[in-house]
């Protein structure tokens, strides 16, 4: 650091303690490059890898990106062990499974040639899906009945919404296709028995709080058709509960909707299960209790399920039954902030630093007063058609932070969203994004 001598240095004034030079500071003018740049800093080929204004070659440590590395030496379990779903299978409440091997005419020689030429095709419709692991994965048996209970699929059911079928947990593209009751084809087993079809939403009950013991699970009953004669269509059964399309609320993700098929020898009187009211709360159902009640007569034979998510059609369904469509939002945690310092040691961007510690009430009051000002002066408070009409001028004229705030105000981003809302500050961000979507929708 060069020490400058004052021009007044030689002017002696008694008792003035005037400084003759600029002060001595114990830090170098330039950083001591060798200390942290490494020994290669001033080597012969120092111009090869210039980094920054200090014109030295620095040896940075090699930073390996943190990827997920699969080390085969650390894998001990076999594939079967690793993928095994450990769920207790104590009680089989279904029928005994009869393994049927379909008889297909086989020409071994032709089959071998086809396999060699890779033209051999397997007819999947001849195969039956027997595994229960998919129901374990989605907790179907636990949520319908009780842990430890299961049953094998002993009757074929095909549930179809137009082109999309309900199989084993598939995601239905749009809930609007489920406005009408699906086409259900039940396999005729030949005996003189009756089928009962139940359609339940396993995740749909928003009314009952979670029970202490988890065994008493609730569902929403969407469709109940009982006493369908063997081999007949679903229409010929008695509709105990009329069809209601699935109603997964917005923000709650995917809901599992299951179609449970039960078999019984004689007709059962389901008049106690009849629901006439339209409200969703009256459709709260407990499959476990129902199954327990008719334990001696009913036997489950098949269950197929699909996943539904919110759609505008869900809003229409809920409005049709006379209730409002709720909106669910995830409550993010408050961002962690360091303790505020009156004079931060490192230079901080003042507007961002001070905004971080401003209480939300003060922000709301500021936004509200701004809104009122605009209503009084302009008569309306609407978002500007463009983020900044005079972008080029403002870029030169205004400081950078002020320009950014102006753009945010015009577009209604962040805290400014509440300027352009009709009511209050609850879920301001979501409401603002909803309104934007409505504007852009054709």
């Amino acid at each position, binding site marked *: 650091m060069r020490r400058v001598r004052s021009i007044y240095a030689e002017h002696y004034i008694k008792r003035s303690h005037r400084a003759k030079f600029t002060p001595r500071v114990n830090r170098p003018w330039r950083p001591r490059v060798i200390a942290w740049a490494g020994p290669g800093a001033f080597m012969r080929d120092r111009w090869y890898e210039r980094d920054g204004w200090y014109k030295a070659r620095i040896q940075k440590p090699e930073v390996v990106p943190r990827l997920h590395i699969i080390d085969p030496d650390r894998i001990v379990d076999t594939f079967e062990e690793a993928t095994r779903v450990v769920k207790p299978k104590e009680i089989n409440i279904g029928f005994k499974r009869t393994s049927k091997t379909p008889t297909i005419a086989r020409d071994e020689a032709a089959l071998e040639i086809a396999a060699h030429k890779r033209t051999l095709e397997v007819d999947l419709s001849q195969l039956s899906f027997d595994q229960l692991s998919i129901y374990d994965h989605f907790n179907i048996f636990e949520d319908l009945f009780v842990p430890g209970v299961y049953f094998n699929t002993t009757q074929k059911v095909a549930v179809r919404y137009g082109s999309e079928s309900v199989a084993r947990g598939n995601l239905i593209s749009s809930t609007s296709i489920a406005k009408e009751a699906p086409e259900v084809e039940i396999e005729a087993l030949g005996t003189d028995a009756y089928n009962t079809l139940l359609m339940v939403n396993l995740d749909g009950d928003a009314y009952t709080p979670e029970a202490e013991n988890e065994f008493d699970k609730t569902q929403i009953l969407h469709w109940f058709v009982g006493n369908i004669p063997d081999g007949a269509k679903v229409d010929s059964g008695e509709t105990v509960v009329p069809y209601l399309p699935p109603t997964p609320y917005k923000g709650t993700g995917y809901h599992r909707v299951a179609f449970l098929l039960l078999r019984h020898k004689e007709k059962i009187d389901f008049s106690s299960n009849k629901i006439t009211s339209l409200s969703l709360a009256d459709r709260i159902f407990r499959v476990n209790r129902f199954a327990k009640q008719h334990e001696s007569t009913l036997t489950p034979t098949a269950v197929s399920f699909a996943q539904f998510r919110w759609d505008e059609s869900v809003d229409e369904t809920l409005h049709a039954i006379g209730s409002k469509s709720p909106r669910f939002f995830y409550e993010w945690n408050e961002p962690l902030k360091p303790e*505020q310092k009156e004079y931060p*040691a490192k230079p*901080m961007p*003042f507007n961002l630093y001070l905004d971080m510690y*401003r209480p939300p009430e003060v922000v709301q009051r500021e936004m509200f007063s701004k809104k009122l000002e605009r209503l009084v002066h302009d008569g309306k408070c609407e978002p500007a058609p463009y983020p900044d009409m005079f972008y080029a001028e403002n870029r030169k004229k205004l400081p950078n932070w002020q320009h950014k705030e102006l753009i945010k105000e015009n577009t209604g981003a962040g805290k400014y969203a509440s300027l352009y809302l009709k009511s209050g500050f609850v879920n301001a961000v979501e409401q603002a994004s909803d309104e934007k979507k409505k504007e852009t929708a054709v």
Partner: protein
Amino acid sequence: MASSMLGFSSFLTKTTAPTLTAVRGVARIPHYEHHIRFDPATGRKRPAQDALDRFKRLNNGMWIRAHPGRNKMRYAKNQIFEETADYFETSTKEECMILDKIASPFWLRRKYYPNDPYEPYHVRYGLNSPRVDHKGRFVRERPKVLLDDTTAAKHFNDLQ
């Protein structure tokens, strides 16, 4: 001189009676002598104009400054620099103290401007650091009090 060279000396030079004009010279003083405690004209403190050009004081005592070197070699700087170079930064405690000293008392008063873009930043919130240290000395106050406490309380009352 140029006029005499060209030969228009009699036409251009006017002879007038000598007038008394107060000439204020700009003394060539080093930068650390810019704190003028008694200026020759009025005998009062003069603020350092360079400091007033480069820094802005908020009503809560914080001095704001632009990032030094923000316009230098922007083409060679990275994306992070591009975003952060235009920030207006806070100053440290010592810097704010020094700036308060080299500015005159006028600049330490509360300023009320209409449509002030800095309006939300004149008041600090959430400062919970102690006002007094273990020996009973004030932590946040300046060591030398410019005014007596009643006068100071009238003007500096927004450390919340």
